[in-house]
């Protein structure tokens, strides 16, 4: 993506103008705007960061340090389906590592990697705040609680059969 193709739509810009009014200062709108960029462009490239700095009247550095501080902002494209396996205490005590290993096996990749077809990325994450439903796997931010090797295999098979069409 080049600098001129990374542009927010007019609707987005209008949305941002409204958003900024909700805060005492425009910098507060940075995180919500980064989410918009991620939604619109798939990830937040350097060009997107420059464009955002311009839109909000910030220095590039101010945008960069936020993008890099927070784990949910992605500077690189991930697979179409981001599988985030929680392995923190509650999930670990209920088989999260075994589940993660199984999923890596099914996908044929290691933790943190993306399948060659670009469909799946698997990542280990911290407590998802849903430990009552351990083990928890987030699939593109949708929570799958009490996940099992079978339920995750079924999900992966389904996505592959659909060719990744949502």
């Amino acid at each position, binding site marked *: 993506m080049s600098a001129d193709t990374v542009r927010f739509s007019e609707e987005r810009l209008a949305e941002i103008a409204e958003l900024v009014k*909700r805060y005492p200062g425009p910098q507060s709108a940075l*995180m*919500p705007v980064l989410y918009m960029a991620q939604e619109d462009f798939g990830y937040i490239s350097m060009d997107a960061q420059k464009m955002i700095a311009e839109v909000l009247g910030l220095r590039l550095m101010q945008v960069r*340090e936020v993008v890099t*501080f927070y784990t949910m902002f992605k500077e690189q494209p991930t697979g179409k389906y981001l599988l985030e396996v929680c392995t923190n205490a*509650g999930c670990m005590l209920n088989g999260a590592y075994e589940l993660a290993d199984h999923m890596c096996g099914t996908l044929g990749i290691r933790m943190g990697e993306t399948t060659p077809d670009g469909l799946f990325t698997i990542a280990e994450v911290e*407590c998802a705040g849903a430990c009552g439903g351990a083990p928890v796997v987030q699939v593109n931010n949708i929570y799958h609680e009490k996940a099992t090797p079978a339920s995750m295999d079924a999900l992966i098979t389904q996505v592959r059969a659909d060719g990744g069409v949502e």
Partner: protein
Amino acid sequence: MTISSDPKQVTQICFDRINIPNQNKLSVARENGAYEFLPTVLNDFDSAKIINEVKTSGIRGRGGAGFPTGLKWSFVPRNTGKPTYLLCNADEGEPGTFKDRDIMRFDPHLLIEGMIMAGFALDVRDAYIYIRGEFLHEANVLNEAIAEAYAANLLGENILGSGYSMNLTVHRGAGAYVCGEETALIESLEGKPGRPRFKPPFPAVEGFYRCPTVVNNVETLATVPAILKFGGEWHASIGIPNNTGCKIFSVSGHVNKPGNYEVPMGTSLKTLIEDYCGGLQHGSVPKVIIPGGSSTPWLTAEHYDTPLTYDDLMKAGSFLGSGAIIVMDETADLVALTRRLAHFYAHESCGQCTPCREGTGWLERVMKRVEGGKGCAGDVTVLKDASEHMAGRTICALAEGAAAPVLSLLKHFPEDVQTRLAESSK
């Protein structure tokens, strides 16, 4: 609400309506008592009366630190010429905690009503809910509920003709545990990396954009409507003195029925685990109970009968924290668990204090080699020294929380570490 006006009959406050379907819809919530008492508060109560009721109620913050809410509110300077902000802490990142999520997804209007009442008491014009980024569904539910509340003039200008106006905005975090710390939350809401600030000044005096700011947990704010409706005295008569009201406990780990359970303060750990959570997966006595989230010191079977209160858990050597109880039976690998938590804290340290940045890194590296069978006899001393040097020397309490699992492991289960080390030397 079906909450009894007789405090002795009360078993739940925040979860009173939690099982009623579609409670997130304004019409349904209203049928069940949401916003019923709000006009009385806005028209007949004033700031001093509300703060006084909250003080009398004895409620202590449900987010982890247990600071008395009424007192916090009374610290806010008035007529400074600056706006006062109300921030709801919905970051819910402490491992083991998952209670605020249920309030937000099942009964968002309870939180919104509590925030309007708190905002009115503190003369707040703009309030925010800072919700962890992963809770996208919950943020959407809240946004829909807020839109309905605006349309019904429960938010916005001149709420219900009372002359009071308040805006409410949901703001998503983006995956940083430290942003749950109130000053980091403020930094994050200002559009910066979430690095905690030195205190003082406390947020009540100098917080969001350097203005007076109150930060309260979701559960704390969701308790406000009941306190104002039934009175501070009523709330103070639930539970036990200095530990009043009900509390939601998020129970996870090796129990048969993990989940959120709201009970009057003072219910025992054993009652909660056996009567509510269906007991342990294996055996009859837990090996470890982490009573207040992963940052709190571990308890063992010896403390199984402890009443769940701030004071009793402190006497037992730990904290009530956020009310996140992680239970482990005899099958738990405590060395592996401690290594996992060490990784968490090393990953989440914001890095601005040397003891925390370096200490969390050390703990993770050493725990990894102990777990992996590559430890040596001196590692116990290294772990001990590193964790003891972290507490009390940092800007925020994350470092102390990071040390807690390691110190607990060494204190209660030195043999588990020794066994691993003995395997290493083979």
